[in-house]
């Protein structure tokens, strides 16, 4: 069970690319890496999950935490690259209505 986390600071945008499996074993690492990044004012964070082969609800918890943090700091949070299975997870939980999970990359929009 492995996870790769890649963080890129591109001007004001924090780009995070995650690959591998996000579950109860790897989620703590993800949390440790990303939560501090979400605690900056006006942070703009884009998380790319296209390399994620499996995510359980513990992983979803990390993204809920990130989203709440970013929102509390007046920032913007966006998740891209969701597989249909992950998309279903966001839809069932109602998170798709409050978190931007548009499948398009930034820049392609509009």
């Amino acid at each position: 069970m492995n996870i790769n986390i890649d963080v890129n600071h591109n001007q004001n945008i924090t780009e995070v690319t995650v690959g591998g499996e996000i579950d109860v074993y790897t989620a703590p690492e993800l949390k440790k890496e990303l939560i501090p990044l979400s605690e900056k004012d006006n942070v703009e964070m884009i998380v790319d999950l296209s390399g994620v082969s499996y995510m359980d609800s513990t992983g979803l918890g990390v993204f809920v935490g990130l989203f709440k943090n970013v929102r509390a700091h007046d920032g913007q949070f966006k998740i891209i690259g969701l597989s249909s299975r992950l998309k279903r997870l966001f839809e069932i939980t109602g998170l798709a209505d409050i978190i931007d999970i548009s499948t398009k990359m930034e820049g392609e929009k509009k």
Partner: protein
Amino acid sequence: MDFRQKLESKYREILTNYLADRSEQALYQGQKLSRNAIERNIPPEEIVSIHRNIMAEMFPEKFNDRMQESFDILLEVMVAYGFAYREHQNLKHIQQELRTEMEIAANVQKTLLGTEIPCKKDMDIGAISVPAKHMNGDYFNFVEDENNSVSIAIADVIGKGLPAALCMSMIKYAMDSLPENRKTPTLVLENLNRVVEQNVDLTMFITMFYGTYHIDHHIFSYASAGHEPGLFYHAETQTFSELPAKGLLLGIEKNTKYRKYEKEVMPGDMIILMSDGVTESRTKEGFIEREELLALIEKNIHLKAQNIVQNVYKELEKLQDFQLRDDFTLIILRRNV
């Protein structure tokens, strides 16, 4: 003779024997001695010290001062091993304590969250909930109302083990303390949402489904807070459909409103509720598909609800090589024919 003196004389005996004939037997006795010494918490440096003293006694000429002094270094090195060993013993002890506490906690949880499956003459109800670890993060609860209705709550705390279980107890008590007239599905979820929002960690949240079966009218009204969708079995057409329900997880937004859904239940129809531990069952080939789950239910459909849920669990457990990755809860409510 205390243990240390005994140890020293035994060591002397073994060492003498070995130096005399270099036998396997003496080596074996040495191993046995070390096990005894470990049990009695004798640190390794003490054994080294015994060795040095005996050698000095036995060979006063050959085992000269220089050789004796060389043992000071060995002693010093062994001290660290002794510390590591004692620490290991301590941790083993603590771990044992924790395990015992965990078992007690799991039992307390069982008692606290226990619920009885109601017996109603018009209905056939079955429920199973199995934790992946000690403590169950899934939860279900039945409540019978005076106006001939049965309510069912099914919830899953994200996060597993002890923290999830503690959170579950909070939910249970928040739900129990709601006044009778506020127990409609939407009001229950809206109230609990506020409780959870105020009281849990940022990355923790809860999915919940709450439904009330009105036995007099055979109407099932329900609402969902991000919970795994339930299924509905139409007896007449012998088909399954999803129980549509949308709603945000508990604990995300303070003032979330939940929508109420209603479904008319005909004789033989079934309401099937579950946690994501059911749909996230993973086999070597990948996730189990919804169709496989439906096929399992269909295969057992002639049985009583309790036997259906038990058989489905057994088969899914087998498919996963008896290693649950997530807590597993499956509930069936059927209107009797």
